[in-house]
């Protein structure tokens, strides 16, 4: 049966068809929908779990493989950094049943942005074989093939995708699930405990695995030639193959590489010998190109093409054919920025609006929807490095500021899921090293930014079962934070008072937990009991009372607009009744409908 699937859906389908029994991931754009899709398959076939972070997901996948079932883990590009420790080690140990690691890179930094790292460099460094699919059909096929390679070579195998493969829908032929025969678990510390007594031998074996796959790389159908006109020969991988095909069509020949490490060097040489000129087209780092040059293949690549961003057809046309992209005859000054904004009803709005009114504070932010408040109208974010960094960056800043007798106080902000991901250790640092930062955990009862995934604080698993729920307030107290307060972030005076009280404690740290559900989440029965009045009312502007002062526009709500002709604010249908604008209006012109 043919279906249109995104690359992410196809990856999940491939893992399922390959008989995978255990999958784990932490949500992250552009990879999130992979585990989401896996969580919809029959629970009797597959265990699909949200892990608190990427390190945990990778480690649990190895455990499942050791026990003898095919396992799977997927992550976004910077997820590799979060799990670098076990990642480096597992190529040494290898696995038992097949294990596949899917990593979704983002060369265009479209939605996540933190870094544009080409993780292929990391996979080489960490000594992993890897595949690079170009579309959804290949994504599915290569995941299945990766399990075979994993079991053949005794190593986890990586499938590396990019945003365009993840989020493009292309046609896929579906097949049935083939159960994989469970493997026996054999206790073998010499394989799984890389202490000095074992590790040199494991390294030897690990390097041998990559060398041993050279022959496979030459033979596999995923490294294939497509001969047309031989004046130009293009060596490419991933979605770049389709970009090249779009531009050159049959006016060039292709060596399409799907299995990129180790490379089929002899195949590359033989292809290069049959064409007049070789272009290596790959996004970001010159992995294939460097290897080609080392092998003595004369080629063009990064001398002509950019080493950042996507190599879209427009770029290839311009850089390789000298054809610039057409530009329409319009006044570009009329195209204004449209940055994403907090949703109508977002529980972050009240908190960040109130926070924006405090002076002489440094706001150490983190990764989540609230990172959007770094921009207008709030400007509430001085830093936001990576998952869980807010509390520790804030801690170091505060310690240094105190040492130089500065007056600036630090407010560290992060979401519930980010706190559970890697903020906990940072808060332990704050308590242990006697910091005096103010730490705000924005508990909106879900992992919101990636599209509403359950987490250890929400009471549900990825597959929808009831789960033990982390008590974040109790956890903060157990860590040693003496002042922990839970507040409703929509209540501006409650927010302001909690912040003032926290700032008044000159020598002690505090935690403020804002507890209110994300407006877009699917509400659980528990949510409905805990927040019976949420999002029930709508508000309107009493036109006769409104003086057009625009104070309400500075809460940054998409439901509020301004009628310039009449100089009046108005509230649209998307109002969710958070009341923040009503609290801000100096004339009390905003009232319940």
């Amino acid at each position, binding site marked *: 049966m*043919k279906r*249109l699937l995104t690359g992410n859906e196809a990856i999940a389908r491939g893992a399922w068809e390959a008989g995978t029994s255990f999958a784990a991931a932490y949500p992250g*754009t*552009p990879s999130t929908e992979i585990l989401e899709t896996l969580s919809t398959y029959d629970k009797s076939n597959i265990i699909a779990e949200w892990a608190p972070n990427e390190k945990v997901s990778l480690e649990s996948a190895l455990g499942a493989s050791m026990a003898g079932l095919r396992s799977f883990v997927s992550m976004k590009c910077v997820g590799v950094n979060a799990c670098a420790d076990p990642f480096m080690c597992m190529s040494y140990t290898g696995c038992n049943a097949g294990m596949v690691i899917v990593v979704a890179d983002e060369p265009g930094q*479209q*939605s*996540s942005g933190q870094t544009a790292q080409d993780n292929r460099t990391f996979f080489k460094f960490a000594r992993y074989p890897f595949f690079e699919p170009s*579309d959804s059909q290949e994504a599915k096929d290569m995941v299945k093939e990766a399990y075979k390679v994993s079991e053949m070579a005794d190593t986890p195998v990586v499938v590396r995708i990019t*945003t*365009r493969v993840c*989020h*493009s*829908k*292309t*046609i896929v032929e579906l097949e049935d699930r083939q159960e994989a025969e469970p493997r026996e678990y054999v206790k073998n510390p010499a394989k799984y405990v890389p202490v000095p007594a074992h590790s040199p031998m494991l390294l030897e074996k690990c390097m041998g695995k990559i060398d041993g796959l050279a022959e496979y790389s030459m033979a596999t159908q995923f490294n294939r030639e497509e001969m047309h006109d031989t004046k130009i020969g293009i060596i490419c991988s991933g*979605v770049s193959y*389709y*970009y090249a*095909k*779009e531009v050159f069509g049959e006016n060039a020949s292709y060596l399409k590489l799907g299995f990129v490490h180790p490379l089929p060097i002899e195949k590359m040489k033989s292809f290069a010998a049959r064409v007049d000129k070789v272009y290596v087209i790959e996004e970001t780092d010159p992995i294939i190109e460097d290897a080609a040059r080392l092998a003595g293949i004369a080629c063009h690549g990064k001398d002509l093409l950019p080493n950042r961003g996507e190599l*879209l*057809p*427009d770029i290839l*046309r311009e850089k390789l054919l000298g054809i610039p*992209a*057409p*530009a*329409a*005859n*319009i*006044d*570009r*000054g*009329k*195209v*204004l*920025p*449209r*940055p*994403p*904004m*907090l*949703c109508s009803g977002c529980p972050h709005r009240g908190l960040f609006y109130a926070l924006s009114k405090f002076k002489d504070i440094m706001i150490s932010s983190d990764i989540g*929807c609230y990172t*959007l408040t770094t*921009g*207008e*109208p709030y400007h509430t974010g001085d830093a936001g490095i990576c998952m869980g960094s807010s509390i520790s960056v804030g801690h170091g800043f505060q310690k240094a500021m105190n040492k130089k007798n500065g007056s600036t106080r630090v407010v560290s902000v992060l979401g519930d899921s980010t706190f559970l991901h890697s903020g906990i250790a940072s808060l332990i640092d704050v308590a242990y090293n006697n910091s005096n930062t103010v730490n705000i955990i924005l508990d909106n009862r879900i992992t919101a930014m990636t*599209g509403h995934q359950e987490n250890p604080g929400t009471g549900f698993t990825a597959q929808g079962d009831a789960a033990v729920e982390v008590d974040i307030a109790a956890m903060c107290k157990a860590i040693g934070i003496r002042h922990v307060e839970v507040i409703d972030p929509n209540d501006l005076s409650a927010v302001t008072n909690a912040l003032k009280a926290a700032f008044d404690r000159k020598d002690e740290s505090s935690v403020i937990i804002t507890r209110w559900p994300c407006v*877009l989440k699917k509400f659980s029965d528990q949510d409905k009991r805990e927040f019976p009045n949420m999002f029930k009312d709508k508000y309107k502007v009493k036109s006769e009372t409104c003086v057009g002062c*625009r104070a309400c*526009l*500075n809460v*940054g709500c*998409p439901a*509020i*607009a*301004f009628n310039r002709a009449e100089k009046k604010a108005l509230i649209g*249908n*998307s109002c969710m009744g958070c009341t923040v604008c009503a609290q801000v209006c100096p004339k009390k012109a905003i009232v319940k409908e």
Partner: protein
Amino acid sequence: MTKSILLVGVGGQGTITASKLLTIGLLESGYDVKMNEIHGMSQRGGSVSADVRYSEAGKVAAPVISRGEADILVSFEEMETLRWTDYVKPDGAIVVSTERIDSMPVMTGRLDYPDNVLAELQNAVKTLIVIDGPAEAAKIGNSKVTNVILLGAIIRHMKLENTDWHKIIRENVKPAFIDLNLQALELGKTLMKG
């Protein structure tokens, strides 16, 4: 020959939903189809786009539309149309719904929403079709079906009426909204006649 349809709008307008219905219909009619969307922040009021490419004979290569390649640009919001005008073919068409949504710099008063967008578009493209999406949607009593009205317009313009779109809507829309969406589709087709 690959055809390219570019749908653009603001998060929450149903741009992605319309492009999904279009893509499913094209698949069921036997075309090779590729669709690309940039989302992630799409529910948060940012700029949203979806590329739909299809081919009757032969395969579609790139899943993304290049500048100067779209047969039709369908825009759910006035200013967003300008952001994507470069992607329209010299002899291509723009269908624009006259909805205006202020972006954050406009809301805060730092910038003004641009004037004369439609005149600007008129100069830039061979065929400009202006639809008052919200007003048309109001005729059938629901402001949320502008996206399917525009889908109807695409189907007429791209001569895709051989596909059973009613079946596609029946199979992919929540039961309570099927009739409304069928009405919206038909309304959208009639808007392309003139």
